[in-house]
């Protein structure tokens, strides 16, 4: 029997409940929500004057009503030390989601820490340290002193290169501008740490170096463009599952033809129709199915290419479009360079591309028509290019990314309505850090260095390598061994004798041990190896700013208390800096200690004003007070002025504004927007009214609308991107040796690595183990039944999954849910990376064998098709 809550009524939000702005904690789309809180001892009523909605709740409400919330949207939490009811429900007035809630975001309330209702009691409440052979609670001062003493000891012995860091660089929960600034100021300001990596990859690099090198920031359009496009080209993105409400609220209207009025209003006499969609993905996803349901099969082209051959397809598109004379010559002449060189270098015939991709020449030429053949009246076809992890974690990331941007530029589709060439995104964004130029490019392959025994102390911020890295099996083995050495050493000294303890730890480090500090909101898998856990607050337990996939920046207001002693990451970083400063002074190193000044923040707002407000492009216009007024719609970055001043700054960099850092740091300090960092103080000349001012902020709907790009000459540069087969070392041999493709990615029901979902009964009831979608014929050959646990194994390692029969899966091409605790797909991913240390998770091949019949927790599951049928 499926999990049922047995809840048959919920408390009603009273008319005077407190209302807070919330942006969903989870994915890039950043749906708008409102949190309503009120005292636990009171309640609203069904009469219109007794509830927040002003409607008669004794009546059945209709479809899409704002006056209803599900049990997952309700909880009881602490707010300023008092018990309050809370409802977190989608906001109908937010332009992002228009009241839609996904299966992930609509559980935010239920996924909150509640001692009253036993939800998320896994949350960390106290700093914890390795003491007497297990993790034990301690005070902040004790834990921070230990961290500071060991970190300084390692710096003394190995220099700052002995300090290894893994840190989130994103927005939303476990990130945000406040917290990337806090960690960034510590590791790139006070220190110059170069052995640092990001949450989902083994180095400090961009997932999209190529587009940035071409002068094209990767989040350059707006969600409305999906409603305006003639053709949407979706590459390696399963938007219905992973950017759900962007797809439902902005793609579907165009697929259904219900955005035609909007198109007519925008484009006048230009011919418009419902959208056509091209989906490049080896797997038939639920997104493909939904597109066919909405637009009709005749308007959907699913190009199920051979895995990892996207680049050949894009070069063939480029060649075909140029041969047919469909290039937007005026645009290319005015705004780009290097077109002819690119065209010559990337030339690839339909036939050659067909051989590589497994498509037919006709499919390739037809899709090129859908992209670029002019419409009636010779009007340019508006094509929106959207890509995500299928490309980013796919074969030859750099060239493939560049090749797709080539096509978008050649067809004049960046900076214009109905266009864009954008990544779809995973997390929200929220990057604000001092320059990372010292990291270099290619950046250090941090996971390999850790395996090789480098480094003495490892600070981990919201990352879990055990679940979310490549070569995870070998990483875990090496990491456990090194951290166990320190654990064993810590058992040799009384915990209360700090000098003896530090000596014991330092000795173990000299012998190859590693001291590990894990900052997170929950106990993690890698945390099992760590010596200190520091409890962090998450979104809603502190104020938090982030931006979504169209650069829409919002403030999530604090609506509840963090669990126990937990603090926002930015303040944890500040307190680590304070303690390091103290320890360094005690050791008679005042010149080093001075570098750790400037961390006297008391609140997350202090960190925001120190970081984003002072350093980010347009940041001078942005304050908490103004963001509160902007509600769940916020504004689109960069800010260019205030309602009271009008636009006073350029929304798009042309490379001419003095002081901007272009092409400098390894990842240009940017995630998505451009160019973010300024040297020194803001130069717009706008007087920023006192921070209490609550004027509305003016933003930027699309980047590059003026045809000027992010390069010194303001022109985008075409990239030469020849096909070179499977690029990452070892992949070609792996493909030949092992029978099954282990494609991988996220699933609809669970957010990211399931760090909260693992403690949610609705989710664990449906997915007790990561599923492995498998063709039934393959199952027969291996004598597998639905729900069986299987071992997936190759030379990199082994892992487990639950078989989900999938008739639409191609034979020998499986798909496994990524980053799950009960079966780590990364265990079988090879260490092979590209020239900038970008992993290639998707092209993984392995063998499969049965481990066990479906366990008890699996027997009740439905294994029916995920695809909707009308």
């Amino acid at each position: 029997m499926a999990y049922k809550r047995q809840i048959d009524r919920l408390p009603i939000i009273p008319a005077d409940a407190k209302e807070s702005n919330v942006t969903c904690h989870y994915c890039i789309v950043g749906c708008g929500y409102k949190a309503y809180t009120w005292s636990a001892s009171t309640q609203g009523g069904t009469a219109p004057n007794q509830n927040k909605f002003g409607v008669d709740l004794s009546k059945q409400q209709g479809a899409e009503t704002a006056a209803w919330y599900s049990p997952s949207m309700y909880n009881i939490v602490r707010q300023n030390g008092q018990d309050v009811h809370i409802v977190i429900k989608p906001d109908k007035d937010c332009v992002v989601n228009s009241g839609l809630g996904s299966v992930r975001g609509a559980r935010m309330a239920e996924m909150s820490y509640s001692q009253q209702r036993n939800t998320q009691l896994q949350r960390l409440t106290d700093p914890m340290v390795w003491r007497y052979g297990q993790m034990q609670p301690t005070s902040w001062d004790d834990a921070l002193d230990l961290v500071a003493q060991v970190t300084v000891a390692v710096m003394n012995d190995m220099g700052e290169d002995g300090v290894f860091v893994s840190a989130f660089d994103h927005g939303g929960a476990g990130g945000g501008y406040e917290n990337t600034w806090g960690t960034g100021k510590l590791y790139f300001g006070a220190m110059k740490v170069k052995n640092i990596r990001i949450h989902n990859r083994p180095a400090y690099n961009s997932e999209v170096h190529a587009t940035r090198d071409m002068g094209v920031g990767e989040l350059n359009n707006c969600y409305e463009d999906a409603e305006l496009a003639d053709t949407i080209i979706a590459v390696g993105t399963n938007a219905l599952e992973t950017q759900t409400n962007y797809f439902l609220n902005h793609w579907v209207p165009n697929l259904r033809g219900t955005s035609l009025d909007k198109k007519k209003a925008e484009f006048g006499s230009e011919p418009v129709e419902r959208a056509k969609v091209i989906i490049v993905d080896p797997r038939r996803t639920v997104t493909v199915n939904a597109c066919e349901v909405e637009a009709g099969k005749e308007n959907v082209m699913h190009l199920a290419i051979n895995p990892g051959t996207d680049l050949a397809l894009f070069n063939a598109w480029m060649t075909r479009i140029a041969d047919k004379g469909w290039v937007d010559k005026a645009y290319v002449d005015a705004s780009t360079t290097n077109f002819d060189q690119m065209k010559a270098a990337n030339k690839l015939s339909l036939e050659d591309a067909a051989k590589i991709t497994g498509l037919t020449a006709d499919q390739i030429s037809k899709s090129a028509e859908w992209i670029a053949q002019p419409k009636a009246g010779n009007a340019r076809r508006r094509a929106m290019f959207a890509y995500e992890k299928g490309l980013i974690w796919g074969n030859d990331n750099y060239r493939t990314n560049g090749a797709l941007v080539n096509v978008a530029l050649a067809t004049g589709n960046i900076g214009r309505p109905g266009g864009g060439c954008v990544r779809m995104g995973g997390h929200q964004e929220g990057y604000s850090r001092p320059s990372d130029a010292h990291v270099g490019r290619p950046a250090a392959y941090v996971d390999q260095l850790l395996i090789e025994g480098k480094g003495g102390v490892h600070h981990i911020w919201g990352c879990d390598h055990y679940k979310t890295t490549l070569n995870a099996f070998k990483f875990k083995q090496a990491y456990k061994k090194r951290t166990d050495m320190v654990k064993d050493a810590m058992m040799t000294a009384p915990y209360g004798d700090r000098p003896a303890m530090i000596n014991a730890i330092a000795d173990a480090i000299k012998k190859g041990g590693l001291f590990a500090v894990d900052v997170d909101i929950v106990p993690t898998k890698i945390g099992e190896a760590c010596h200190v856990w520091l409890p962090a607050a998450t979104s809603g337990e502190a104020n938090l700013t982030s931006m979504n996939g169209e650069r829409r920046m919002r403030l999530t207001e604090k609506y509840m208390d963090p669990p126990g002693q937990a603090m926002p990451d930015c303040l944890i970083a500040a307190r680590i800096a304070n303690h390091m400063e103290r320890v360094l002074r005690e050791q008679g190193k005042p010149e080093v200690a001075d570098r750790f000044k400037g961390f006297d923040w008391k609140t997350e707002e202090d960190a925001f004003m120190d970081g984003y407000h002072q350093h980010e492009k347009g940041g001078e216009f942005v304050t908490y007070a103004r963001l509160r007024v902007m509600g769940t719609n916020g504004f689109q970055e960069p800010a260019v002025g205030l309602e009271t001043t009008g636009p006073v700054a350029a929304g798009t960099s042309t490379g001419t504004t003095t002081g901007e850092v272009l092409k400098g740091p390894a990842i240009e300090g940017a995630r998505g927007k451009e160019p973010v960092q300024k040297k020194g103080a803001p130069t717009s000349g706008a007087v920023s009214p006192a921070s209490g001012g609550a004027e509305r902020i003016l933003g930027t709907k699309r980047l590059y609308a003026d045809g000027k790009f992010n390069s010194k000459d303001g022109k985008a540069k075409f990239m030469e991107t020849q096909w070179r087969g499977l690029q990452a070392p070892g992949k070609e041999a792996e493909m030949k040796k092992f029978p099954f493709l282990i494609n991988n990615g996220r699933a609809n029901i669970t957010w990211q690595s399931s760090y909260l979902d693992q403690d949610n009964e609705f989710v664990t009831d449906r997915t007790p183990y990561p599923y492995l979608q498998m063709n039934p014929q393959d199952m027969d050959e291996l004598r597998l039944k639905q729900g069986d646990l299987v071992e997936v194994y190759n030379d990199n390692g082994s892992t487990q999954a639950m078989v989900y029969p999938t008739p639409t899966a191609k034979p020998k091409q499986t798909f496994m849910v990524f980053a799950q605790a009960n079966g780590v797909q990364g265990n079988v991913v090879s260490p092979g990376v590209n020239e900038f240390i970008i992993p290639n998770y998707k092209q993984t091949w392995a063998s499969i064998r049965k481990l066990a019949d479906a366990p008890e927790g699996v027997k009740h599951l439905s294994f029916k098709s995920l695809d909707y049928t009308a």
Partner: protein
Amino acid sequence: MSRCDRMVDVGRRRFMSGAGLAAAGVAVTSITPIPAQAATGAARVDYPVNRLANVRDLKLNEPLNVSYPDANAPGVLLKLGKLVPGGVGAESDIVGFTTICPHKGFTLNYGAGDRTMNCPGHYSRFDCEAGGQQIWGQATQNLPQYVLRVDDKGDIYAEGVDELLYGRLSNVL
């Protein structure tokens, strides 16, 4: 333990947890939206016992439209021909579900081919043979299923619902 046993295991996550069922009931009372009855009110809403149909009215794998717990709450009865979770009748194969999607309130369509309820709004799917488990979709609840009973005459009665119905903050208005 068979899966059917879990249906009555309401304690898997009690509405107010940390206590036994009786204590949980008291706690619920304190936050019910009927203050005047708080002192004596029941922990759960009182469901009507409604006769929905007779077993003779049901044909294999053909949905019979009903409504429960009132006329504004449409649903179906299904005879599935095999033992299924929550099933009643001689073959434990008769089940009933709401036909309003718990995501955004759209009307679900029954797919006889694979015995699922399908939402045209946002493509959510629920398995009628697995207690209404959401196969895929955006609802944060599995499909509300009726608690059914069949009497000696073959009359089918609904006596409760196991999840909150869309569009109402109390299953019984």
